[in-house]
């Protein structure tokens, strides 16, 4: 095993935070519900599903969570980390409170999504995949949300802004707070 048991216990000891403990319990329950056997040769087939769940619970996948998953599924940490670094969907850094997704699919691109992105960068002072200093906003680029008829598209949580112009950017940033409190 690539992960020392001590490491794991140490991290768990450190998390006095009740909320964090709840999160780990939730993930633990999920992994247990899959009924993975320690020596099952097919157990790795569940890894991506488990990581999806973990990211849903924690918001991102820090090393402690990776160690936890590796231990629970009897996999090497390197295998878990390798999968995380390969797929765009998984992130090892926390996101902002308000996540702004800008679609850069082809339909949005030819209709000027790049300019929308530049406007957000200008107003928030951060680039794609970055978080503002106050941890309030983060910008992410998505490749096609499949609403090409409404291009260019920006999404914040469930809200979809269609046919966005650079003039709408300020309004979208303002509305983020309202969306998050919904």
């Amino acid at each position, binding site marked *: 095993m690539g992960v020392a048991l001590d490491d794991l216990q140490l991290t768990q000891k450190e998390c006095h935070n009740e909320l964090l403990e709840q999160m780990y319990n939730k993930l633990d329950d999920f992994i247990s519900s899959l009924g993975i056997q320690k020596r099952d040769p097919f157990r790795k087939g569940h890894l991506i599903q488990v990581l999806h769940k973990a990211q849903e619970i924690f918001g991102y996948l820090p090393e402690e969570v990776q160690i936890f998953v590796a231990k629970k599924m009897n996999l090497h940490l390197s295998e878990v980390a390798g999968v995380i670094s390969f797929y765009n969907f998984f992130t090892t850094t926390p996101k902002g409170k308000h996540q702004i997704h800008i679609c850069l699919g082809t339909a949005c691109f030819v209709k000027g999504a790049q300019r929308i992105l530049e406007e957000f960068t200008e107003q928030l002072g951060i680039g794609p995949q970055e978080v503002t200093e106050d941890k309030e906003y983060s910008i992410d680029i998505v*490749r096609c949300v*499949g609403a090409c008829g409404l291009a260019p598209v920006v999404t914040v949580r469930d809200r979809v802004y269609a046919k966005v112009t650079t003039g709408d950017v300020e309004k979208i940033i303002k509305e983020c707070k309202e969306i998050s409190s919904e």
Partner: protein
Amino acid sequence: MKKIKTKEDLFQLYERNKTLLALRTADERVKEDVEKAKKNKTQREILVCGDTGCASAKSKVIFNYLKKEIENRGLDDKIKVIQTGCFGLCEKGPVLMSFPEENFYVEFKPEYIKNFVEEHLINGKDLDRLYYTDPITKRKIPKRSEIPFYKKQFKIALRNVGVIDPSQLDEYIAVKGYQALAKCLSMSPMDVINIIKKSGLRGRGGGGFPTGIKWEVCNKMPGDDKFIICNADEGDPGAFMDRSILEGDPFSVLEAMAIGGYAIGANKGVIYIRAEYPSAITRLQVAIKQLRERELLGKNILGNDFSFDIELKYGAGAFVCGEETALIASVQGRRGEPTTKPPFPAEKGLWEKPTVVNNVETFANIPPIILNGPEWFASIGTEKSKGTKVFALAGKINYGGLIEVPMGTTLREIIYDIGGGLKNGKQLKAVQTGGPSGGCIPAEYIDTPITYESLTESGSMMGSGGMIVIDEDNCMVDVAKYYLEFTTHESCGKCAPCRIGTKRMPEILTQITEGYAEDDAIEKLENLGKVIKNASLCGLGQTAPNPVLSTIRFFRNEYENHIKNKKCKAGVCKNLFIYRINDNCTGCLVCFKNCPAGAIIGAPRQKHIINFEKCTKCGICFMKCRFNAIEVV
């Protein structure tokens, strides 16, 4: 709910459900009842598009409010509100339809509901503003069948999308659902494969490999453990055909997977779907649950000794996982890196067992082929490309959306007859097909019939079916750069030519768009492109240079203009153009008021001037000017 244990159960249910879709489909069995309903206006159905596109424009709110409003007025026994899949005309979403009139309502808003119910549904008054407007004649067209967008379309894969409620197995049974599987189960697996071979169906995911042959190879492999996988990892930016099929008609894909499973001898199916498609995932989960409850998935399906079940696996945002060997690696929980072929997945695939991987749209074509016969399917399309193809039409077009046309239809028919021409009367420059693996077909070629071969000849490819219309305001070098930046990010890094080459190509393209490229940049790109194509293992690398090579082939002068004259005529590459105001200027002050940089100097009724030092080239003045007074030089 009654289980469907035998063939007899299925046909009984088909008979019992015949009235379910009576208003929506021209079912011969209930023709009289429908006529009566039409005359007396006793029964009506309002269909609300629930596809992601329309849902983004609040169609779910409309669905809920409309239902409540009708319930509140005590009309719910007469008027049924149903949420369906995509109607196709996404550009004008949210879209609603009413039956039996077949009226088509576009750009519907939640605030219209009260008026709509009272004036239109109860008092029968026409609400003109809700109808589609013809872009040329400006006439209002209430009926869907008369809208040009739908006239040249022919639906096989999308036959039930936007017609049935995708969350109700009963509705699928009413459109002959699961009869194709029943028919197959009374034949030998080889007979099924022969039907598919005879139909000439080719893979709709990109490569165009004959589906029947793939199945045959897998069928002939020894062993009992085999797998059938549905590739729903639609990673092409600008393509959403598969998503719409899964959201609008999940049962047909699930039925086809069972047919495929029977044909190749697999009793396990896997759907590999993008995690970015939450709504399609939910629809599939709902559908699979119903099929298990009614025993159309599980042991001894329809009383035969064939057992089959389906599992969902989620992608995690990697374009390369659309390649079948990479997809299999990902299902096994590994990094999605492709492996060498042979061995092909049909020989050694998932967990080393023979595996068939087919695309969503390919599956959606299978049940009608079984029911209507291979000759019927082969009579549609061209000699080598049979049947129809679904395209996601988007970009600078008046009516974008989801369309299905017979193979051999020309680009002109798609863009002008179906799509209603370009936005704002602009000039067509090119059409991009095949996503990051495809290329740009220039405007001169729009009379070429669309087939697998003709698209490959013109340096592009069929791909999965994204079709992006590009107009004179787009810079082709910039478009090529966009695709290459995408592949740089998505190259898995296994093969050096692809990993390094797709990094160098956008670097050179950036030099071109920023105006400091060397004179031999085009030759360098061409050489590099050739090497990447020849020396990469999988489809991603072998096609990655296509967007660059095809734009160099057809738009070489545009590249040269960037490199030698340092000019971008389309007004996209910011270092290579300036905005100038010409004599068309009436001095209306619109640009002056809208300029965020305060770069326009002007007074009422006097020609304005742009201060080049302040101008950020944001393009707002260019977009706002109604007199064509702002030009790119």
